[in-house]
């Protein structure tokens, strides 16, 4: 009975020759490259933009992220409903995903947008990270295309966009986080061995200046986070603490890098949201 007349398992009336994702790689890649270029332009001007412009850009990025997050959340909600509720249950309609879901996803999108924009400003013009983001674009679209091809005939068309987005996110995300961790490991670090925590925090935050108060404070917080990690690692190393203590600090580095990667890939998903379905929402 569950299999009959079930929107999640019924064969969708899609054309057999509908082009899969792999035929849209170029367009998706171009879109995402333009998105990265826009982030790069924001990075160049981020410290001198007035607060109004910063807020506007943040809202645009939030809305793009929200588009992807909300659509995916509704797909997941639909899958959950179909697994736990009868089709004729009134809760099907009530838990379809409305204002509450929208607000939750809006908050997530807002936070991730802020993290992304502030991190991008802090990265500055360092070419290494930007080239990594170009590579991430390629990985992302290729992972999505591959997933779409694999899941084309076996996954439910209602849920396939979420699957493809997730595969693309995880595929590119793991590689990106790994590369960023490696980058952090080999990057030269300032010498904080003889400095107090107050000195370190003051000096790393003092370098972060911006016209907009939000950008200035946000970058200072991120700089303080990074400075704290570096100081703790150097103090721990000097004090000859056990390896698991040092590993704890690297967890913090992992979290910080992951936040940036997740926010970037959520933006990518948002840009491409609505492209990977067969016309039915």
């Amino acid at each position, binding site marked *: 009975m569950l299999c009959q007349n079930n929107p999640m398992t019924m064969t969708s009336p899609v054309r057999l020759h509908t082009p899969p994702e792999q035929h849209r790689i*170029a367009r998706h890649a171009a879109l995402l*490259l333009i998105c990265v270029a826009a982030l790069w332009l924001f*990075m160049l*001007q981020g*410290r001198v933009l007035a607060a109004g412009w910063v807020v506007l850009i943040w809202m645009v990025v939030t809305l793009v992220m929200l588009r992807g997050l909300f659509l995916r959340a509704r797909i997941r909600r639909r899958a959950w409903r179909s697994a736990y509720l009868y089709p004729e249950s009134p809760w099907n309609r009530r838990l379809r995903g409305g204002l509450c879901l929208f607000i939750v996803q809006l908050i997530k999108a807002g936070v991730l947008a802020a993290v992304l924009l502030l991190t991008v400003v802090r990265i500055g013009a360092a070419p290494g990270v930007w080239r990594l983001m170009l590579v991430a674009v390629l990985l992302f679209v290729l992972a999505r295309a591959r997933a779409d091809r694999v899941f084309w005939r076996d996954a439910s068309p209602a849920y396939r966009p979420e699957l493809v987005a997730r595969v693309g996110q995880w595929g590119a995300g793991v590689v990106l986080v790994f590369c960023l961790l490696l980058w952090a490991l080999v990057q030269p670090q300032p010498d904080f061995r*003889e*400095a107090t925590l107050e*000195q370190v925090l003051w*000096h790393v935050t003092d370098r972060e200046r911006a016209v907009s108060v939000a950008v200035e404070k946000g970058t200072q917080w991120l700089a303080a986070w990074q400075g704290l990690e570096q100081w703790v690692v150097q103090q721990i190393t000097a004090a000859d603490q056990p390896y698991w203590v040092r590993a704890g600090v690297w967890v913090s580095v992992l979290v910080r890098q992951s936040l940036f990667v997740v926010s970037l890939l959520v933006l990518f998903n948002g840009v491409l949201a609505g492209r990977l379905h067969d016309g039915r929402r």
Partner: protein
Amino acid sequence: MRHGLGAVVICALLAAGWHGAGAFQQREAPREARLHLVFDGTHYRVPQSRLPELQARSGIWFRQGATLGQEGLEARLERGMVRLFEPVENQLPTFLDWYYSLGGEYTRLSGWALETLGFEGRALVVGRTEELLFEETDFQARLAALERGLATDAGRYAQRTLKGWRRMMRAALADYEVPPPLNHSRENNSRALDLDVLSSGVMAGERGRLENRLALSGAGGIATGALVWRAATRAAVASGGRAAAARGAGRVASRAGSAALAGLGVCGATGPLAIGCGLVAGTAAWVSIDWAMIEADEWANRDKLERRLREGLDDVRHDLKSQFSRALKQRLEKLNGRQRARIRNTLTPLETIKKAATQGGGQMEHG
């Protein structure tokens, strides 16, 4: 075809992104130039816009410090002068007793005689004045002690002014305190301006000079005796001198005549003994007549002379006080003025920029 075109476009975009990634620099937010100061071991970053205000406050502080110091020292000087001249004034009766004694009389007569013969006869009386009024009361030593005390007090006032300035600066700079630069224990921060050197270095150099005397004019010794007589006889110099000369001449003549008569009256014998007797009797008569004349002179003129001598002493005191006052003012102005100038040169942005340009390291920080 379309796929090939798409691939070409993507490759072009990737290549452009790859090579262009480091081609442009991020624009930095504008930042007000700030001066890095070190004061009492604490680091500060002071915006350039605040430097003129700090400089002005410092200038006002040192000027007021000099004024207050001057007032305090004047009061101290006044008390010191009273204590310095009190024993001298108390010694005046003793001096006058000598003056109206046989010894004083003959000293004055000798002086008059030497003056008549063209020598410096007044020096006898002046010397005795100096001896009785000033040397007996250890005046020069007490004067030197007063001078040293005032010099030390001047230094203390300047030091107090400097301490107050440091307190004021600490309060004014409190909002701009920053942690020390990283690795500052291993290398000096050549970009920091050390106000400790500015303030303590000057004072260390001055302290040695501060303990010295005030370098008054005539510090080797003041010719007080001559000054007293000069002041005392200033008003009555013409009449007093002629009267003294007349008295001197009259005394000698009258004493000579009276003594001769007295000698003739006492010794009735004749011959050599008579001469000897006459001499002794004449001398005794001379002395007794002299003593009587001194008594009369004292009765008539002692008060007037005492008044003149006191006026003379007042003039000496006034002159000495003026010298001290000028010297103290110059000393305070020199100390505080030097501090003001150095602080002005340090905190004035133009001067600081010039200094930074010549030093090459740069003390102004932008960012």
